[in-house]
């Protein structure tokens, strides 16, 4: 760890990726993640063997990610909601071919062209599929700029460890805002574990083949079973969350990303009125930390979910907790960011 720097979320993510050993970055510009691409344009070419390429489209960029990731080098793309939709075919192929890659989504308002304001409407897309077939992405949701840098760094490790694409799911506010960041020390890419499966040139070994294709029914079933076993291992080992004030809460609030940090302000306001507001923040949206949430929910009557959408994560909350627990939802949409005192009004309906 070095000294503190005041950085935008987009810049901190880009720099953390470079420090994690990412040497291939392909993207097409879109607001509100443009600064990420700008940072990569400036600094990636300064890395030894660093490749920055502004693709002709998002589809081109994700296909380049497929190719570069096949060589075993750390590879990333980034975009915002509509651009991530365009990448879905490629993401499914990455998952099917078990290629490690990091995909950053700085979410904005949708559906369609939507707008450029912060939103959390891509929860379903990131956690439930988005592309075709039975696959899972590891989905990491930072709620501050320093955490965005930390999770970007970690995303590359997870992607390599499980040979699986990882999505960093943030929103326009995290991307645009500045906070002090302590960046991780750069890794030496020659120290990274070797990838015996990678297509590095068949020199004295059997050929490596990367594909997401099996003609026979039994063969494809077997491949899928292997994927499911991997996903089970990820669920077991990589579920992450943060808890605040959950020892003896009057009510539990569940939120991720930007909303979770805003809820910290609500917790302070609630405390002034004698309400102990517990906060449960999933850091991995997939795997969703449902078991821990179920345990915590036994301490309260109400688990309130707050999101910047019309209710997406709340479905996972309701699947996790017992049916006798009240699970209301409050959301803001279209780029409206919920106000701490407005969230408090919702909280007070249930205590």
């Amino acid at each position: 760890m070095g000294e503190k720097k005041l950085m935008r979320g987009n810049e901190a993510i880009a720099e953390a990726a470079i420090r994690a050993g990412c040497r291939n970055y392909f993207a097409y510009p879109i607001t509100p993640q443009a600064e990420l691409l700008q940072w990569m344009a400036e600094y990636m070419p300064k890395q030894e063997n660093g490749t920055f390429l502004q693709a002709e489209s998002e589809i081109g960029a994700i296909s380049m990610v497929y190719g570069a990731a096949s060589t075993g080098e750390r590879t990333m793309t980034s975009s915002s909601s509509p651009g991530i939709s365009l990448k879905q075919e490629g993401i499914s192929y990455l998952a099917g071919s078990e290629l490690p890659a990091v995909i950053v989504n700085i979410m904005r308002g949708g559906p369609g062209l939507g707008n450029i304001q912060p939103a959390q409407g891509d929860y379903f897309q990131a956690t439930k599929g988005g592309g075709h077939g039975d696959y899972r992405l590891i989905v990491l949701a930072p709620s501050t700029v320093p955490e965005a840098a930390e999770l970007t760094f970690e995303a590359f490790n997870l992607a390599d460890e499980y040979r699986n694409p990882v999505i960093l799911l943030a929103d326009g506010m995290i991307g645009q805002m500045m906070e002090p960041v302590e960046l991780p020390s750069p890794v030496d890419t020659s120290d990274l574990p070797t990838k015996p499966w990678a297509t590095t040139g068949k020199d004295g070994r059997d050929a490596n083949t990367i594909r997401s294709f099996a003609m026979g029914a039994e063969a494809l079933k077997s491949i899928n079973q292997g994927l499911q076993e991997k996903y089970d291992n990820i669920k077991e080992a990589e579920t992450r969350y943060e808890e605040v004030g959950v020892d003896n809460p009057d009510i539990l609030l569940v939120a991720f990303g930007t909303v979770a940090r805003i809820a910290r302000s609500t917790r302070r306001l609630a405390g002034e009125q004698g309400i102990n507001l517990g906060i449960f923040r999933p850091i991995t949206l997939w795997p969703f930390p449902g078991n821990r949430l179920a345990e915590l929910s036994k301490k309260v009557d109400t688990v309130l979910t707050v999101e910047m959408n019309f209710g997406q994560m709340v479905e996972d909350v309701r699947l996790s907790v017992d049916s006798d627990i009240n699970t209301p939802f409050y959301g803001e949409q279209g780029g409206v960011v919920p106000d701490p005192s407005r969230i408090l009004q919702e909280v007070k309906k249930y205590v």
Partner: protein
Amino acid sequence: MEQYSTIVSGFGGQGVILTGKIIARTGMEEGLEVTWLPSYGPEMRGGTANCTAIISSELIGSPVVNEPSSLIALNKPSLDKFGPSVQKDGVIILNSSLIDDFSVVGSRNAVPIPVNEIAKDLGNQKVINMVALGGWSNVTGKLSLSSLKNGMKLILEESGKEKFVGINEKALEKGYEAAKEGVKASSV
């Protein structure tokens, strides 16, 4: 320090983004928690540009504030848009070179500073934002003049603009002095 939030707002080109960054950077150098949040997108093209800087000794939850502790309004649309939302005991630094109707400030501690004229006297219209920020330092007392000079210097040096440090220091000083002589708009 309790959480202290400032909205800086003006026309694109008046330096509001940099002003907010200097508040955040200075706060960080002083060991405080800080956030800086810009308005982004089409509204920056032409109309009012604004950003929010928060400094606090505690972890900052929401970087968005609906009722800021203070406002630096460099033009009339900014005062009209954000003035009424400033906390009742809050501070408004307003650019009296471009604003002559202060009625929205109500009972708040509003300090008019003719930043365009002061910058013109200094020979550089680009430093109006630092004149206003110097005034903000004096009236709010949240970050000292010397701390802000340091924060400004660090930011300009990092972006290769160190040759402008001198003129911006002068602008901060002039603004600080001008605010000493300021009159509460509510008593005008």
